[in-house]
């Protein structure tokens, strides 16, 4: 199991756990980030910039710090 940080562009994984305060989990869930969901990294900005990810039909920009809280199991695209 790895964090979202480890995925490179075009790779995807299944969200396994959200390592954060329960109140934050709810916020993440509401934005579509919930356990069991497949998450795809569409692009990463240069110089440790934000991630552009996709879950179902939702696309999000996530900063490195938030990405480091999301644990995933890598899967094939």
């Amino acid at each position, binding site marked *: 199991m790895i964090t979202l940080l480890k995925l490179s562009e075009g790779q995807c994984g299944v969200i396994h756990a959200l390592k954060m305060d329960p109140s934050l989990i709810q916020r993440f869930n509401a934005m579509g980030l919930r356990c069991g969901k497949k998450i795809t990294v569409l692009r990463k900005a240069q110089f440790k910039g934000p991630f552009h990810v996709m879950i179902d039909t939702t696309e999000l*920009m996530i900063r490195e710090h938030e990405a480091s809280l999301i644990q995933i199991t890598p899967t094939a695209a």
Partner: protein
Amino acid sequence: MKRIALLGMPNTGKSTLFNRLSGSSARVGNWPGITVDLHAVKTLLGGHISELVDLPGIYDLQGLSEDEKIVQGFINHNKIDLAIVVLCSSQIERQLSLMLQLKNLHIPCLLALNMSDEAKKMGITINDRILERKLKIPVVKISAKYGEGMTELLKACAQVMNQKITFPIKKIKPLNVSDQISNGKKIQALIKSTVKFPLKLNDKNTKKLDSFFLNPYWGLPIFFIIVFSIFQFIFSLGKPIQDLMTQFFNFFRIDYLEPLFVNHHSIFQSLLLDGLYLGVTTVASFVPIIILFFLIMSVVEDSGYFSRAAFLMDTLMEKIGLDGRGFVMMLMGFGCNVPALMGTKIMRTKELRLLTMFVIPFSLCSARLQVFLFIISALFSAKYGALVLYGLYLLSFLTIFISALVFKNQFKNKEPIIIELPPYRFPTLNHVIKRSVLEIKYFLTRASKFIVIGVLLVWALTHFPTDVPIASELTYSGQLGKWLSPIFQPIGINEQLVIALIFGFIAKEIVIGALAVIYGMEGTALAHHLYSNINQIQAISFMIFTLIYTPCLSTIATLKNESKSLSLVIYSVSWALLLAWVFSFIFYQTSIYFSS
């Protein structure tokens, strides 16, 4: 009167629906339990005279973000007869949770599946009849943008409002983990039986546009070209309109107002013309720029590009505690600070927004540019003049970055920065126009009083006592200038210039006019006088101080309105004064040292 609330996640077209239901009469109002203004309208809905309130877009009813607190406050303190929950059809799976949370509070609601056209294009089909039966509330498919499904929506509104309320409405309480899980399971079951997703989603357009706009190499250049074009469009179109208005106001004053009051006592005449009339025209001069600004910015916002700008600039902006959207507003500030401050509304994180508002006043706006151009052309050759102006622009950026860095921890953002990148969408003219109209109403109702009072105050300072020449050293402003001279002398600013700075508090454009009054000469004569009385070092020091010391009265009024925080205003003005003095001091003293 019944109260209807529009609720939904951000980017679901909630405001578009509000505009469609509200006609043109929307206003801004206050409600118990919350401190911000919300858009609302009185309208005939479902056979009742109702008050329709547009609540901010939120992801979750329980959360701790600023917008979530607003919605919680509204729900807990105001009786809601109907909640229209708007959701984006293609994201139904994620957005249903908000609906369930509301339903659990026993608030009478109905579900509007917006952007049903977009979902259809993506190949997503929703069986609204089964969904309606399972949720036990009316479900209507609509397209707020194209006005589809509106009759059905109104019918459903009437149906819900005419129902007897069986359960008392509950207050919002935190959900525990088991509630969360059970809601999650409920949604999964609902989605399984009512929504069909295609095997592969086909939103090819957004993908294509993103690979263009977010390209690692030309994404940023494109961004700067877009921002530059917008900037040029707004301000090169707005400036001539503003100038025309100024001409008209002058003409009106000379040809109509002055003859009208010619028989009145001179001080009364001056109060009306140099005080009140100047205040009113100052307010009015912002109208064209604000309208143009929001016409264009709503297009950028509605199209979905603004979130992409946030993505592009985030790497750099994160370092100074801002985000990409703040960067765009900061750049717009170089045209005019007022609409740029109003535009920060789009940033829904309080701390980020406050910090952005804090730094925008340091942007060298076009009004300040006018002053600098006059002084530079009076005192410098073309070659050095360009260099001086360039230096002032650099200084403007520098003060922005320094202020952001210094205050980044004061406005520490506690929320996760996750920004949705919605699909690219075509904005609708209707929505764009209504947005601008609302913003201008907002500016006029909230800022005008403050600005007029400020202008009157400066008028009193420069016109009393009445038996001495206007704006002379014997007026209160002159005495203030003398009193402040120990502070201004070390930065090379003489007493007359201090009086000009007091005038500049109203608006930077006035500084040159004020100098004309103070020295009793205009145009070329004034330029010559400045040339022979002020040296270049003093002039630059004066310009540095003018750039930083305090934004105009309108900017301060807007800062107060938008932040709803007097302490932010005091903070901002004192910090600017301090910074202005320090920079002028450093410049003036080192220059004197090296030139002697």
